[in-house]
């Protein structure tokens, strides 16, 4: 016989109480009033001189009740040898997710991860089917389930470990959410091949440091398949202090004189032990910048002064090195010329130029100048019928009148281009806008895609079919093209069949005007507007080539750009497992000690099950009740006899 709650057996010690009470003479609650206690001193309770017990049977019954209750509360059970100790039924499907993000570079986490994967593989039975997936901000299959099946059972572990050894921590961030979803998908797919997919046990083992910087998006609201469990093999390091350094994005509202890319954020992990850090340019002789960041907080600092255009900033004072470098590229204000070809005076509010000049405001990043010089201007805007042929850049033609059609026909080498003024309606609205086009892409979000407040009083009806390779980017509600794009040589010709000056439309006065102008400038491949700071693995502009895998300063053509670690990776404090549970992840925590206790937990579960089935405590309680009834009966009889004797005796005087 075994007990589920053996501590309750200690209650059996209460048996000593009735015996003790029986032996101690101090059983009276009587009180005697006396005039003065000045001649009296307390007498200790004295064990009776009579060592014999009066009613052995009663005493035994009372002790028996206490013992039975204690044993009942201890929940006894008889453990039968389990029949199902060996492997039975189909093996389980396991996906082992190994975190290879940059934060795994800390201390000996990667070694721990390798050992933990080895442990997990060791625990698998030959019938089990496993896949090994490495993940950082994307998931990579290291050993597929198909390969696992093909490999001899004896070889599987060695193969998996060999594949894992070929890997190592990357410099990428952590996207645990997408890795989990991918693992679920792959498990579902594997299980689908089974005869009874619903009966297959599925398990995802995540070997990770489970840092707070892990992205968990995608898990919210996800419906987890039944029978699937996620076991988190948490890795931990004793070195807790980690601070990271990151460049802050520029604010667009900075004044035209503000310096760009000068602000950094120093983040300290919430369980850090250190708070004092130093920041200095690599190789610089200047004294380092001292900063104090309490655990769990961040501090924004101005970069130390430096002459160079690009440099490496280093943080010292914490335990972990991996996120202590920041690669920096200084960005200066770019001067952009936009050519405007027209004859209007600058301050004529009835003409497009007036609004164009005010549309492009000077910012810290860009200084757009409207000139009438066409050379070197990436964007040209033609108002009226002036000669300007697009060669490399982009030219926007504002058709203020139908006379512009002749000029366009000439540029495009068309014999003729018929065009007429629109008529009939009081105004037209933009409809059928191609939001997939880069020009309108910033407006694709439903919050910004409403162009119906802009009234076009006049426009020119131009049939796009007359122009080969023409693409209509927007139409008026009558169906007439509003904006047509025509490729010309290496450049592009955009034809707006109306204009933004008040006589033609409300466009210049609408909130869409300025974003549209900047979108046009971006579209005209204005290179100086490019960002030069990227994160590891982030997709780069075409001219910069493939995403970079390591932080550093890279050169592509005339440009230098910096690639840094993602900021979230510095948040190395362990994520509470509850957060995963709150997201609905069917999670089971596993740590070295827990793994060691696994067997004990299983045994305890079996014991609880056996106890629940046998319910021996009920019989014990019944026996205790029977004892109580017997005790009451006997005690009643004894009391009756005693009172009969006392009544029969005369009252002593």
């Amino acid at each position, binding site marked *: 016989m075994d007990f589920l709650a053996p501590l309750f057996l200690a209650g059996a010690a209460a048996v000593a109480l009735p015996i003790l009470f029986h032996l101690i003479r101090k059983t009276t609650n009587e*009180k005697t*009033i006396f005039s003065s206690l000045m001649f009296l001193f307390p*007498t200790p309770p*004295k064990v009776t001189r009579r060592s014999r017990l009066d009613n052995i049977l009663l005493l035994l019954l009372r002790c028996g009740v206490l013992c039975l209750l204690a044993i009942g509360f201890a929940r006894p059970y008889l453990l039968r040898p389990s029949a199902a100790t060996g492997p039975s039924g189909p093996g389980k499907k396991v996906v082992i997710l190994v975190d290879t993000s940059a934060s795994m570079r800390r201390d000996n986490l990667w070694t721990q991860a390798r050992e933990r994967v080895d442990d997990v593989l060791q625990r698998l039975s030959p019938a089990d089917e496993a896949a090994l997936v490495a993940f950082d901000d994307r998931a990579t299959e290291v050993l597929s389930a198909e390969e696992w099946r093909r490999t001899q059972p004896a070889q599987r572990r060695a193969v998996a470990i060999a594949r894992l050894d070929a890997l190592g921590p990357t410099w990428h961030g952590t996207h645990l959410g997408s890795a989990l979803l991918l693992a679920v998908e792959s498990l579902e797919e594997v299980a689908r091949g089974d005869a009874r997919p619903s009966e297959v046990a599925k398990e995802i083992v995540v070997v990770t440091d489970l840092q707070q910087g892990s992205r968990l998006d995608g898990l919210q609201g996800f419906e987890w398949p039944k029978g699937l469990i996620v076991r988190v093999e948490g890795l931990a390091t004793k070195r807790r202090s980690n601070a990271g350094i990151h460049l802050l994005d520029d604010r667009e509202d900075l004044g035209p004189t503000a310096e760009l890319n000068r602000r950094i954020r120093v983040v300290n992990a919430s369980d850090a032990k250190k708070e004092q850090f130093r920041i200095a340019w690599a190789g610089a002789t200047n004294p380092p910048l001292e900063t104090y960041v309490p655990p769990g907080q961040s501090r924004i600092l101005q970069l130390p002064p430096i002459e160079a255009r690009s440099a490496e900033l280093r943080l010292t004072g914490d335990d972990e090195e991996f996120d202590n470098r920041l690669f920096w590229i200084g960005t200066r204000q770019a001067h952009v010329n936009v050519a405007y070809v027209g004859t209007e005076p600058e301050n004529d509010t009835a003409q497009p130029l007036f609004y164009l000049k005010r549309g492009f405001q000077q910012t810290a990043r860009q200084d757009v100048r409207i000139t009438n010089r066409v050379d070197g201007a990436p964007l040209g805007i033609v108002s009226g019928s002036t000669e300007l042929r697009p060669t490399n850049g982009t030219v926007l033609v504002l058709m203020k009148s139908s006379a512009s059609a002749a000029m366009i026909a000439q540029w495009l080498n068309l014999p003729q281009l018929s065009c007429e003024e629109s008529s009939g309606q009081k105004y037209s609205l933009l409809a059928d806008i191609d939001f997939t086009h880069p020009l309108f892409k910033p407006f694709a979000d439903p919050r910004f895609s409403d162009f119906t407040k802009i009234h076009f009083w006049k426009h020119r009806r131009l049939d796009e079919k007359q122009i080969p390779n023409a693409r209509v980017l927007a139409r008026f509600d009558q169906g007439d093209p509003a904006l047509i794009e025509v490729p010309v040589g290496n450049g592009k010709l955009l034809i707006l069949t109306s204009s933004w000056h008040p006589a033609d439309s409300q466009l210049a006065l609408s909130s869409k005007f300025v974003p549209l102008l900047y979108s046009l400038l971006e579209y005209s491949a204005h290179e100086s507007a490019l960002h030069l700071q990227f994160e590891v693995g982030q997709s780069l502009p075409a001219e910069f080539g493939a995403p970079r895998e390591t932080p550093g300063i890279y050169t592509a053509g005339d440009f230098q750009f910096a690639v840094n670690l993602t900021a979230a990776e510095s948040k190395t404090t362990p994520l509470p497992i509850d957060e995963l549970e709150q997201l609905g992840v069917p999670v089971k925590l596993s740590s070295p000690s827990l793994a060691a206790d696994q067997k004990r937990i299983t045994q305890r579960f079996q014991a609880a099950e056996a106890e629940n089935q046998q319910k021996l405590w009920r019989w014990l309680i019944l026996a205790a009740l029977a004892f109580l009834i017997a005790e009451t009966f006997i005690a009643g009889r004894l009391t009756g006899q005693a009172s009969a004797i006392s009544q029969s005796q005369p009252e002593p005087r």
Partner: protein
Amino acid sequence: MRDVVEAAGDPNRIGTPNLPGGFIDPHTLMAIKNLELRARIVVEGFWKGIHRSPYHGFSVEFTEYRQYTPGDDPRYLDWRLYARSDRYYIKKFEDETNLRCFLLVDNSRSMTFGSLAWTKAQYAHTLAATLAYFLNRQGDAVGLLTFDETIREYLPARNRPGHLRHLMLLLEKPAAGAGTDINAALSRIIDVVRRRGLVILISDLLTPLQALEKNLGALAALGHEIVLFQVLDPSELAFTFDKASLFEDVESKRGLYIDPGAARRDYLKHFDAHNAAVQTIADKIGASYVRFATNRPLELALFDFLRSRVELRKRSRRTGGIVTREE
């Protein structure tokens, strides 16, 4: 008769004493509600008794006639006797017949204890009333002071109509105090009564005795005669309990678990030592100390009282008026 008195007066006797004929059974006496009536019955019985007793002629103040000799103060000549007998007699000690007596009665809560049908307080009040009645009947002035942890009632010594009645009323007030402070009462008497007199302290004396000697000594030094009546319950005297229980102090309400079988020896030892200390103090200051149980007839208390007076007088005569300790 002397034997009878001594046998009845043995304070260590337990239970109702084997009373000789003529004494009133305390059970009967204490059943009488009226305190004054109780006192009168005791005193009347006492008078009847002393008419047949060898103590005939005992009085608080014995008046002596002496033949006049030249040099005596003619103011003390008894002219009435001269008228009857044609002889000059000096009426000696006449002024002493107007004795001033103070009864100091302990009204503390410890006096409310009693294992008989009456408490120590009731017995003490009856005793005080008896003495007051007796003295009043002799024409002496009687005063009263009741106390517990502080002075409760004070009545100056007088001998005027209604005074005895007033005194009886004060004595009928139940004991209500908590602690006992005999010294406060004695200090008060020292302050108030400057003239020589008789001070009778009626108490169980179950209180620390540190300052008692000093105050009693001060009283004696003022020329007062002092009589200590220690009233005790028979169960206090012999500790007649047999069941172990929680003993609660009637004054402090403190509780102690006591097994009487084990505690009796110690109790009696300490109790006797305490009483011996009281006796020592009384001897030292020349006071009479009479201890008796509440089951003792009250007439015997009067006998004790008078006997103690006689002894005091003898002593004072022997020592020329200075009371010394009798070895």
